[in-house]
Every structure is written in C-alpha cells, then in structure tokens.
C-alpha cells in the first residue's frame, strides 16, 4: 500500500468562475521559453491531434506518435452523430448551465461537477474553432448552422456534418496538425506504437515505442507526455471500436503507477447492427440520431415470426415510448440499451437469430416524405444495406446494443494530469467528465475540449516549474531498462510457440467480459469471471502462437501485447464492478434496482471515484477513493419518464 493521496486540484469559488480564475492563477511560460520544452503527444484522434496542433501553435516543441499510417485514421473518425455545444442558436432554452446539468445528470451523478462545467463552457468555443478551420457542418438555407436533438436531452444543441461528424472534426484537427508539421513545429511519427511509459523518481520522463514497420524499439524523452489514446471497449472483443483500438498505452502507464479510475463504467450503445455469426470481427454502430425519426418496437407476442409489415399496430410494443413517455425513443443510452436487452431476453427479439429490436422509419417517411428522411440518414441507410442486404426505407432496421465507449480511464486531476507528475490523459483515455454514462454527441465535445482548450492551458502551469531543465537523457537507466524489458517481451511472445492465435484468446476473453461484466452484472457472475479470466490468461501465456520475426511488420506480435493488457484490464473491470455495490448509469448491478427495474444508486456509500493502483502481477490492486461533492446539482433519482 503506497501513500498516494488523490488531490483533484479543483479550484474554489463559484462553479461558473472556476475555470476563468484557474486560468488566471496558473503559471505561464513566456513565448520565447515555450520552444525549450518538448511535449510528447501519443495518439492522434480528436484529443491528440487537437492538443498536438494547439501546443505547437503556442510554440512548444511537439513530438507526436500514432500507430496508424496517418493521423487521419484514428477512431474518432468513425463518430457519426454530432457534437454538442451550448450555443442556444435554436432559442429553445439551452445554456451552459443546462448542458452542464444534463451532463451531470446523464452521468448519473458520478462525474466531477467542476470538470463538467468547464466542458460545457468551452463547448461553444469548439464550434467556432471548427467552423474557422473549415469543418462543413450542416447548414440551413439561410446559411446558418443547423442543429438537431440527441438522446438524453430535450433541446437541439447538436451540430453535425451528415452522418460523418467525427470524420470532419478529425480531418479539421488533422489538417491543423499537418500544418504544424509543415512548419517544423511537430515531429510526426506514424506507425509507431507506445509500449512503455518511462518514469524517473516518480515523474514522467518519456516513452518507449516500437516502429511497426522496422520493429525498432526506441526511447523518447520529453518534459511532459500526453496520452490521448482512446478507450478500452475492445476488452469485450465485439464492440464498435476499430480493430486496432486498445488499452495498451493507458495500461502500461497504469503499471508504472498511474491510477485507473472507474473501469466498470462502460457504455453499451443501443443502436448497433446485431451480430450475424461467430466470425464477426466487430459490430457496426448506427448513429443514435436515427432515434430522432425512428421508432423502436418489438412484437407484443413471444416468438412472433411474422414479417414486420404483417404485424398490426395493436400487436407492436413501442417499449421506450410506453415506459418513458416524455423522452420516448430519445431515452439515454444506458436506459435504451437495457430495455432492448430485456425484451430480447424475454424472447421477443427480431431477426434471423432473434437478437435485435426494430427501429422503424415508416411513420417518419409518411410524415416527412422519403426525400427528407433519406437526406437525413441516407448514408447510414446505405451502410446498413451493405451489411445486411435490407433497405431501411422499405423495412425496419434491426438494432441491438453493443460496447461503444468507456467512461472509465486514467485518473486525472482538474488539470488533466494523472497522479504521475508530467503525465496527462486526454479524451476517452481519462475518466473525468462523463461519470457513469455518457450522453450522445458528448465524446467529440470532450475530446476537442481537452485537446484544444484545456490541456494547452494547464500544461504551462507544470512546465513553468521545469524551466532550465533538460529532458532526461534516453541513455538513462530508466530508459535503457525499459527498452530491454520491451525487447524481452517481444522475444518471449514468439518463444511461447503455442497452438492458438492471439485473436482466439481475445475472442474468448471478450465472451467472459461481455457475459459477466456487460449490460447487467451480479455478484456471482463477477466472481466467476474473476476465476475464469486468470485461468484463461494463464493458458494464453503458455499456449499463444505468434509466428514471424520481431523485426519488421508483424501484426500478430502487435496484437498479442494488446490482448495481454486486455486480460489484466478485464480483470480490473470485474473487480471494480464487484466493489461497486450499486447501480449507476452504464453500471447495472442486478441486485440494485428499483421496483420498476431502474438503476438504484447508493449515494451514501458510493458517491466516489474508484481509482485503482497496480500492485504487481497477480497481486490485488489497491482502491483509492476520491469523494464526489455536488454543490450545484442535487443528486436525484435519474428519471426520464
């Protein structure tokens, strides 16, 4: 047990003034001194690309790393629906305070109020910044920006670029980054994967990477390191995350002492295309915006095998509209997902293997006309048809929940710094803003807020104290021992010479994590998972087969290390879920529900952030608690009825 004390460094004063006064109170680095500092940015999604570009614009010397072949491939690109901002362009009662309130409530009162308020404040700057960069948001005929509503909110505050909002925002950040590369202020390293975080005397010193083309293992030193490496949804194997999305950067930081907070807070997105067979490599998301115009239903009867068009209105159960009259089909993600699981578990699922619910556009098509509906969702309908061979203009879509986003992540303070000085975590990689459940269109907002507006401001406060100090030499034993350990790892995996592929073990692990730590969890299941995962991990370590060479391109070798990290993380997710004897947001413990089957929080005992400390392989991690204080929003039962 170490002596870590969690200091969230939340500024004092009225909540709406905290960020402004904090910015004033922080130390600054003068423009001529900024170029003396080297900042390592790992990951080039919204958070990473935005941070790298902005830090370079400010004058810092930035080294930026991505395992992709280009920064533009980061998985932020796949976000479809939109980005929230409290612009109140629609005059429908929106405000910074309302976005703040909605996000705290949507997170089921498990997020830090101060962080969320700052997020709502800077949301308006993000839209201005993106438009200035040329992000082609949807417009009305008069030339003004268009907005739409999104799950979990009753105002229209979501900005969008067709069904490709994430793509356009990422391209904006990518282009800003490439401009800085052209100016020589950012040194970009593509196809370079982080394999270790290096610390010296408890302070972040840099990273160790593998060149995915040559296999070269190298050290990089910096005054500060920013991990912008996304979430860990692929712990479930099947998820909407990209094939290569992984937890390795965050996990290796965790093993070097960074606390991992709330790992059991995972989001299951309600509108994905159901799996069709066991070879499925990933699940495809259908934007939640579809719920604006689609109605979700299943047959009232069990095992109803009629085609959807043959089921009369009276035999249909529009279960979200029935149970949540005021939010209806726009109920938040966790609630929509759990209700879909419930009706499918009851035996009222639809589709060839009865594993989905209908999302029906017939009513909207008759109200708005085919053209309007197709203009709004055409590209999503095309995508659906390519995958399923069914046309949603003619028959209802089939959808089912899938792992999509992870609210948990590295513990960070108000400055986005982990408990390791000099090591920051931005975007989905940190835990701070979404509590136990994230609202739709808020991930893009948080990634860009952290990258454009938060970290570039807070990092100066840390760096100012390092003026005159050179980064640690990469010849230092801290680096050389890490490089040797990483090289050993590579040889060790190849030397195992077992019989099954890393992919096989990932799939088997995913089944355990999904079954026991998915949409509904209970004590027995979690305890079972905590014996099954270590047993499977042992088999994996002794029987995995990695062919080929450590030098040069070797995709199995890339994969095996990521799977090893998912094993350890999967165990921590179950441990965290077992510890949290309450239900909140995406964490639903079957033992803790209201009479109507809703999540039942226990504010008296569990209103805290659960941050875990790595104690070594095979040892039980230590739990640290950061109490959550609600001064502005009173925690109430989260009702969307």
């Amino acid at each position, binding site marked *: 047990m170490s002596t870590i004390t969690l200091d969230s460094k939340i500024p004092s004063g009225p909540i709406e003034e905290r960020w402004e006064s904090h910015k004033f109170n922080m130390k600054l680095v003068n423009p001529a001194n900024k170029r003396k500092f080297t900042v390592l940015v790992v990951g080039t999604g919204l958070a990473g690309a935005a941070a790298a570009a*902005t830090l370079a*614009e400010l004058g810092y010397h930035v080294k930026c790393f991505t395992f*992709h*072949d*280009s*920064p*533009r*491939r*980061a*998985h932020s*690109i*796949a976000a479809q629906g939109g980005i929230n901002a409290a612009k109140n*362009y629609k005059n429908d009662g929106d405000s910074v305070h309302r976005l703040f309130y909605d996000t705290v409530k949507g997170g089921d009162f498990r997020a830090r109020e101060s962080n969320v308020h700052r997020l709502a404040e800077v949301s308006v700057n993000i*839209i*201005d*910044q*993106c*438009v*200035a*960069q*040329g992000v*082609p*948001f*949807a*417009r009305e*005929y*008069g*030339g*003004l920006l268009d907005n739409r509503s999104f799950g979990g909110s009753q105002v229209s505050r979501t900005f969008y670029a*067709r069904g*490709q909002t994430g793509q*356009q925002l990422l391209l904006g950040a990518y*282009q800003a980054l*490439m*401009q800085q*590369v*052209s100016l020589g202020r950012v040194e970009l390293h*593509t196809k370079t994967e982080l394999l270790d975080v290096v610390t010296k005397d408890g302070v972040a010193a840099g990273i160790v990477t593998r060149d995915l*083309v040559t296999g070269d293992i190298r050290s990089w030193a910096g005054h500060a390191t920013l991990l912008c490496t996304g979430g860990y949804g692929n712990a479930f194997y099947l998820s909407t995350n*990209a*094939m290569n999305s992984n937890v390795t950067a965050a996990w290796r930081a965790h093993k070097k002492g960074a606390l991992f907070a709330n790992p059991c807070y995972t989001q299951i997105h309600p509108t994905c295309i159901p799996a*069709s*067979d066991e*070879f*499925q*490599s990933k699940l*495809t998301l259908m934007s939640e915006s579809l719920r604006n115009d689609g109605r979700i239903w299943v047959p009232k009867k069990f095992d109803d095998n009629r085609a959807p068009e043959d089921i009369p209105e009276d035999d249909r159960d529009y279960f979200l509209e029935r149970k949540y009259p005021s939010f209806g089909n726009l109920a938040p993600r966790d609630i929509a997902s759990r209700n879909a699981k419930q009706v499918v578990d009851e035996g009222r699922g639809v589709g060839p293997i009865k594993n989905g619910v209908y999302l029906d556009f017939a009513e909207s098509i008759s109200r708005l006309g085919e053209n309007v509906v197709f203009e709004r969702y055409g590209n999503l309908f095309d*995508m659906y048809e*390519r995958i399923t061979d069914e046309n949603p203009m003619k028959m209802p879509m089939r959808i089912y929940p899938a792992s999509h986003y992870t609210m948990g992540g590295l513990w960070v303070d108000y400055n986005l710094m982990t408990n390791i000085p000099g090591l920051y975590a931005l975007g989905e990689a940190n835990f701070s803003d979404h509590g136990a459940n994230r609202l739709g269109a808020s991930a893009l907002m948080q990634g860009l807020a952290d990258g*454009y507006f938060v970290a570039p401001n807070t990092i100066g406060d840390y760096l100012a104290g390092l003026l005159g100090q050179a980064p640690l030499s990469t010849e230092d034993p801290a680096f050389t021992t890490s490089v040797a350990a990483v090289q050993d790892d590579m040889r060790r995996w190849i030397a195992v010479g077992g*019989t099954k*592929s890393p*992919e096989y073990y990932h799939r088997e692990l995913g089944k355990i994590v999904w079954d026991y730590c998915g949409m509904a969890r209970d004590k027995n299941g979690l305890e079972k998972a905590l014996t099954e995962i270590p047993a499977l991990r042992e088999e994996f370590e002794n029987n995995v*087969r990695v*062919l*080929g060479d450590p030098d*040069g*391109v070797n*995709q*199995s070798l890339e994969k095996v290390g990521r799977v090893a990290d998912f094993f350890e993380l999967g165990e921590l997710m179950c441990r965290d879920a077992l510890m949290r004897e309450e239900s909140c947001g995406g964490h639903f413990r079957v033992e803790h529900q209201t009479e109507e089957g809703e999540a039942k929080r226990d504010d008296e005992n569990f209103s805290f952030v659960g941050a875990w400390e790595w104690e070594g392989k095979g040892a039980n991690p230590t739990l640290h608690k950061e109490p959550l204080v609600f001064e502005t929003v009173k925690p109430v039962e989260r009702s969307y009825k």
Partner: protein
Amino acid sequence: MNLTLKVWRQNGPTDPGHFETYEATDVKDEMSFLEMLDLVNENLIDSGHEPITFDSDCREGICGTCGLMINGQAHGPQKGTATCQLHMRKFHDGETVTIEPWRAAAFPVLKDLMVDRSAFDAIIESGGFITSDTGGPRDANEILIPKVAADSAMDAAACIGCGACVAACPNGAAQLFTSAKLAHLNLLPQGQAERWKRTEDMVETMEMFFGSCTNYGECQEACPKEIPIDFIAMMNRDFLKSKVKNRKLQGQR
C-alpha cells in the same frame, strides 16, 4: 461457399513478391471480405504459416485504412463500397479471387497487402488546411454559408484517403484525392484567403509523387465515397487561375 484465393505475398519492400494460392472453405454470405481473410489467417496460423499482412481498422468504411485490389478492381466489385464493407454475398461458390495490394509507384508495398500511403499526408501538409490557430475566432454563425456550398464542400470532404483512386488509375495519379481536399476548402468562405496558394502548393506536391491525369475516370468508379471527377475540373481551373491572378489586388495568398 468455398473459394480459391490467389494472394500477393511480399516479405518487405525489397522482396520481389509472388502469388500464393489458398483455399477459403466454409465462407458465409454475411461475412465481410476482411472477415473471410481473418478466417484464412486463423487457418494459416493453425498450420504454422505466417498470416497474410493486410491493413484494416474501423471496418465501417470511414477510416480509409483498408484497401485491396480484388480481381483487379480497387475495393472489389461493389460500387461505392470500401473493402471492409464488401460482403461475401457478392461472390459465388467455387470462384477464384485474386487479391493484390494497391499498385502505384507512390505507394510502395511494406509487406504482403500493406502499402505506404504517406505521400497523401505530404499533399495535405503542403496546403490542405485553413490557417486558424486555436483561439478566439468569431462566432460560428457570423460566417453565413449557403446550404448548397456547404453541401458541395461536404461532398468533397467525404474523401477517406484510402488511395483507391490512385490504385485504379492507369497513371497512378492522385488528382481525385487532391481535388477533393481542394474543393472542400476552396468552396467555403473561410478557405478563400489561402485559395490560390493552397491550390498551387498541393498540385505541385502531388506532381512530385504521383503520375499525371489523362481523364480515364477510373478513379471516380473506384471511389468508395463516389466522389465525382467534377472536382478535378475545379482544381484544374483554380490551378490555372492561381498562375495568372493578381492576388495582391484581392488581398489573397
């Protein structure tokens, strides 16, 4: 269904490379093309052979990471579809399928079916942006953008940078990729200040890496986002103008 695959194997950039033949058995209609390759790879690993290296990531047709020549067609037979969204129902039992990497001088093969597309990043780096440092720009709604302009810019901005246009082009030209980015930025009011310099820089960088356009139009047929060659016409016009315009009179770069 069962298929015979002829797959390009190349162990590194300097290896001459060759075709290997594999049998893909028990392939299901609803599998994606890449899931079919995953299955082949699992079997290769089981039998002690190194799996086929190929790139993919989002498998939703948006990240642009994947890209294979399938029977000589970039991204295969289905129009407007990236390799990852191509499903096996488009093939039939007993078919022989030839799988190759993108073939273009500007995209050297790294291993098997994986190529290096960093020349695309070089084009963007040379001018594919609107200078606007993070800070306090004016309110987003102060810039009025007619819906038609925003829609056309979005049509162009939909490019995923996969490289199919280059792979499909007999000349290995990157006109469609370059013109799509130019159209996205040059159509918007925010993009006007740098319009001519951007066009000049990006076209000239493109020509350093890629072949020349002779209007085959194969690129728009192969494009998974169905980006039209109209944008190439716009680029050519802007490039010509960039050479004759007195930019100082207009205060533009």
